[in-house]
């Protein structure tokens, strides 16, 4: 079942157009990865889906509804969750409070609880009363994902989830992604780390200067050396 379907999406910051006719699909229980260099438009695409910052035009169909004209909080309540690249933890709030802010009634099925999130990210369980500002980067990354889960999302946008993290934390996050897929959650993550992408994703899109240049499986991407050379190598 196609959960997220984007057609001909254009996006701007002020006068500068960032995305040009982007189209992609992601199914329920599937993880798709956006690959591209810095400045390719990966983060803008995620923000456009959430209705943040950028102006946008096109179609973003999510589970039958068109998100293009909806305000951000309504998009979130439809079950779309967002984990930004810079994490944006509420630094003055404790871990427990950060999770409380993310809480939304489930659209269907069983609701996530803080306890369930702590099972997914065991290190967080011991720091419930710690302020977000006093956590390491890896702890913040786990908290951001846990906070997103409190909204009981059916789809998760993860912007560069493995960036700058210790390998042991990256493993925890990869495990969490696998568990979410198993629960039928759809994911779209952006990555520069192909190794991590191969470990978690089923499908890849290559984004270059606002255009989608490739859509297919990771195996197909790996087979196309010329494409990788043109759009991914530095």
């Amino acid at each position, binding site marked *: 079942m196609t959960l997220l379907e984007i057609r001909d999406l254009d996006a*701007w910051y*002020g*006068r500068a157009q960032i995305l040009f006719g982007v189209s992609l699909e992601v199914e329920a229980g599937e993880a798709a990865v956006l690959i591209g260099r810095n400045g390719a438009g990966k983060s803008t695409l995620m923000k456009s889906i*959430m209705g*943040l*910052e950028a102006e946008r035009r096109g179609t973003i169909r999510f589970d039958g509804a068109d998100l293009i004209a909806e*305000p*951000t*909080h309504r998009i*979130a*309540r439809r079950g779309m*969750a*967002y984990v*930004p690249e810079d994490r*944006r933890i*509420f*630094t*003055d*709030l404790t871990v427990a*409070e*950060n999770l*409380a*802010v*993310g*809480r*939304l009634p489930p659209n269907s099925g069983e609701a996530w609880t803080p306890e369930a999130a702590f099972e997914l990210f065991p290190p967080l369980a011991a720091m419930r009363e710690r302020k977000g500002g006093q956590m390491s980067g890896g702890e913040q990354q786990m908290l951001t994902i846990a*906070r*997103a889960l409190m*909204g009981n999302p059916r789809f998760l946008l993860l912007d560069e989830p493995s960036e700058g993290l210790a390998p042991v934390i990256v493993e925890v996050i990869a495990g969490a992604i696998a568990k979410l897929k198993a629960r039928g959650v759809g994911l779209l993550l952006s990555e520069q780390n192909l190794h991590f992408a191969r470990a978690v994703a089923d499908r890849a899109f290559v984004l270059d200067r606002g255009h989608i240049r490739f859509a297919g499986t990771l195996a197909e991407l790996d087979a196309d050396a010329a494409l990788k050379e043109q759009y991914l190598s530095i």
Partner: protein
Amino acid sequence: MIASFLIQTLNGLASASLLFLVALGLTLIFGVTRVVNFAHGSFFMLGAYLAVSFYGYVGGGVLGFWGGAVFAGLAVGVLGALIELTILRRIYRAPELLQLITTFGVVLLLKDVVLFTWGPEDILGPRAPGLTGAVWIFGKPIPQYDLLLLVLGPLVGLLVWLLLTRTDWGTRVRAATEDRDMAAALGINQALMFTGVFALGALLAGLAGALALPREPANHNMDLTIIADVFVVTVVGGLGSLPGAYVAAVIISVVKAWCIGIGDVRVFGTVFSFSKLTLVAEFIVMAIVLIIRPWGLFGTPPAPQRVTAASILPMPVPDLKRLWPLGLVILALLALPLIADRFTVVLATDIIIFALFAASLGLIMGAGGMASFGHAAYFGAGAYAAAVAAKAGAPFLVAVPAGVTFAGALAVLFGWFCVRLTGVSLAMLTLAFAQITWAIAFQWDSVTGGSNGLVGVWPPELLSDKTAYYFATLLLVGGAILLIWRSVHAPLGYLLRASRDSRIRAEAVGVDVRIIQWRAIIVAGAAAGLAGALYVFSKGSLSPDSLSIPRSVDALAMVLIGGVQTLVGPVVGAVVFMTLQDWVVRATPYWHAVLGITLILITIIFPQGIVGTLRQWRQRREAEP
């Protein structure tokens, strides 16, 4: 002596409670919406008037007083929600300066609503039932009500703190205060929360207004008096800090109370009246805090603002060949006295004077990017200095330069502090300075004539004819505007604009941003002082109104109407504004309301400023396929 200090300290703590409630509301609203609500003092005033009316209907007793306070708080809270829904909601994405002007439009509007509803007289309010007596401490009486207030302020503060830290709603508010976009991405409806927080803040101000009644009658100066104090408290305590608001309210109030307690002191045969120095004391406290911690006692340094000027067009060097319309204007101005009657010549003199006033503000706002809500301080300082000099026997040619010099000196003093702040904090500081200047003019009877002002200040024989004075004004104002224009296209202007567009880059290439901004403020202050000096000789008299906050806002309105980013803009704005004012004032006594509504509409219809909005419309048209 110690007993007296203790008494005054308790008295100060009681005042601090009221100040704190208003400042708390302002800080809450700012935290979430990033809007400094100028109308917060108006909510305070409305609370007082509403409580008086409630008392009038219900009668005395516990219900009349405490019921009135609850009613006033709730009613002002509802009004706040309505104002948020109809006005503020439309300006959240607008630049700070425009937001400030919109809420000032609300101030003007509510001022006339109060005048219309309750009339111009002060109204004595009820006293708290059962608390009209005094408690004797160290042989001195302390009003029981003061002791209650002293407890009530921190108590309400505690309740708000519990609301923020112990409830889901409060947790969400704190989250949105930190990062409102992220909060929205987690499903929080910002619009609803903003309305709620605005209503809560308004409620606190309305409640404080009602609670102030046993200490002062409901009156028309409450709004600007309290907002100036609250701005000082916010600047001292740190914008957005709850404990900061309380500590600063205590410091300011207690210091003021001590000054009153000290009273007259004889030093080497001269009597110093400390009780009249309360405002100076407030100023000194603020000055010390700003020197040590520019962002306030409990505040955090703001992140340097980058590229706020994305929508500002570079100012072209004027092409001399295209200046012929200016020649026509000059010819028309010279010919005016030949064809116009006496009344028109006097009005034209006023307009020319205010054109200089607006142009001087335009220099620091446009090229400097510094919002001033207290520019009338320099105008009034120039006017008072010239008038005092003339009264002392100085001739016109000495009195006018004296006015310019004094205004310039005041700008040296105020400017030194102003360049340490940016954005809304700067706007709040300028307003506080202007209010302090106004209060000095209002209180210093022996020099300024107090509320009566000064009369009989006339130009010499040679200029006593209205037409002659018109030409003298034209000459002096023309020269001053030419100087301002020149300085914008001189190194000062270039460095000033560079500092505005990117402070960090300007500093990185070796520009001392503060010195440059300071110089611009001094030039603008001196020019405004000239306008003030010319104004007093034109009118022959002077009252504290000439440096009141509404006068400062007149200048802002002129600059805004004409356009900030041109040199001609403020001058054109002054002409439009003065003509309009002359016309409206004769048609209705509610000029403030008309001006307020105009300001609100302009800022809502053109949220990016007139030029910016037009450009946005064009951009959107280009983007269509």
